[in-house]
């Protein structure tokens, strides 16, 4: 007999409190708002790798990612005075990265749809394809070929599903942080992750056959 267990997954993204911002971070934000250039430099230094990495994963192009990163920090400094500590500063910056990437993705896909990287190019970039004889017959191990296939399928996913999965798997964000970054409810994050993984799992099943 099944015992129903009440789940507590659905949380409001806006429920994250001011306590998300620690004292040191709050002081840094205050200094930036007064126009302290050294504080602005510190803020960029702390978050630049994270911003560039996420931009790179969302856009898949280093030059575009670098350009987007600059735009993100400019946006951060323009709107930092409106930051009220409703989340960690990192999560707030994630949201800006995602919004900027979403806008750029639409334009990028319209313009360069025909010149997207092929699977062969991707495999060449990540190394040789392992022989299928090295793979267990019924289960696949995490190989470069599998990874390439998964990434190819990931690129075909809708932007919001792809972003949710990248934030979860690469950046390791919690569901509530992903929800804030995407400006959606936690339940929506969960459903997007589930749909994204179902699609990728279908790709895995295709590899096994």
């Amino acid at each position, binding site marked *: 007999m099944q*015992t129903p267990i009440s*789940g507590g997954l659905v949380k409001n993204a806006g429920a994250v409190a001011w306590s998300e911002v620690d004292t040191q971070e709050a002081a840094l934000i205050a200094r930036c708002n007064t126009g302290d250039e050294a504080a602005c430099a510190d803020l960029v230094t702390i978050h*630049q790798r994270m911003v*560039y990495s996420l931009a*790179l994963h969302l856009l898949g192009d280093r030059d575009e990612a*670098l350009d987007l990163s*600059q735009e993100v920090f400019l946006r951060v400094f323009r709107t930092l005075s409106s930051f009220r500590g409703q989340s960690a500063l990192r999560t707030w910056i994630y949201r800006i990265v995602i919004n900027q990437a979403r806008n750029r993705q639409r334009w990028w896909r319209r313009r360069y749809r025909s010149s997207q990287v092929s699977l062969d190019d991707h495999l060449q970039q990540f190394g040789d394809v392992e022989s299928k004889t090295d793979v267990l017959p019924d289960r696949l191990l995490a190989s470069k070929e599998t*990874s390439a296939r998964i990434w190819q399928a990931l690129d075909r996913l809708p932007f919001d599903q792809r972003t949710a999965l990248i934030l979860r*798997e690469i950046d390791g964000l919690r569901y509530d942080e992903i929800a804030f970054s995407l400006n959606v409810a936690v339940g929506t994050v969960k459903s997007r992750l589930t749909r994204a993984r179902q699609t990728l799992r279908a790709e895995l099943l295709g590899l096994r056959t």
Partner: protein
Amino acid sequence: MIPYVGCEYAREHLDAFVDGELSVDEQVAVESHLRWCRTCAARVEDVQLIGTSIRLGSLAPGDEDAQTVSHLQSSVLIRVRAEEELSLASRFRDMFADMRLLWPALGATSAVTVGLALALSVLHSTTRERPESLAAMIELAEPGGDHNPLMPGNSARVDRLLGYIDSDRAGGISMPRALDDGTGFESIPEQDAVFAVAAVVSREGRIANYELLKSERRGPRGRNLPTNDVEMLDAALRQSRFAPAQTPVGRAVAVNMVWLIVMTTVQTPPEPRAIRVPPASTAPVTRIPPTESLEETPLKRSDRLETSTTA
């Protein structure tokens, strides 16, 4: 006691289980299910494999990227400084960042502009200066206005309540009354003269326009009116002030009138002739004392202003 959960429940929570987002109770329940359900356990392995594959193929910034990223700070700060210098332009650009707002704003601005232009054109077309405008037509049609003067007397009548002119109602229009005694005409040379002027006395009591109907002058200069006299007459007419004609309800109206200006000279009668009485024989001759000097007294000039209405 570990609760039992079936595959349906477990599959709903597999992603959260892998991500560590379940509560302790849920985590334990799903984990116990996975111990005996190979299908769900395989699903979990797939989810974990997907995560591993994503991390394996991620474009993690390398050494080359580290150098690129290190330049990010300086380039961002340079742009921040430049933007502060051009903050106004930057704010203006931000206004157009969201194009969804631009088009409604442009549409609203256009609508307001068109509306203002229409309103101004309507106002312009109704000014009194334009003869075809409604205001000018109302002005023309208004009885008693400067463009539509009345005739004084009882022929034109006025509604006492509403103030409009109606010939079928009782009442009359008073005559305009001259406010000066003809001093304006003293500049005209002292000659007997008669001028007949058809004029309109406006609501303000001025001569709006006039026409010299007739002029007669006696004296050595003959009947023709010299040019100089015409100018002086014109100046005198322009300086003339009247108490405007009024309706019975006290409303000032413009009226037509004929103004008869007569300048006459009053002379004393001729010198009486002395009567010589023949002397009586006995009576002493008496001399009638001479009358007082009957030298011609200086001419006293009087101007008489008369008005009459036009037919």
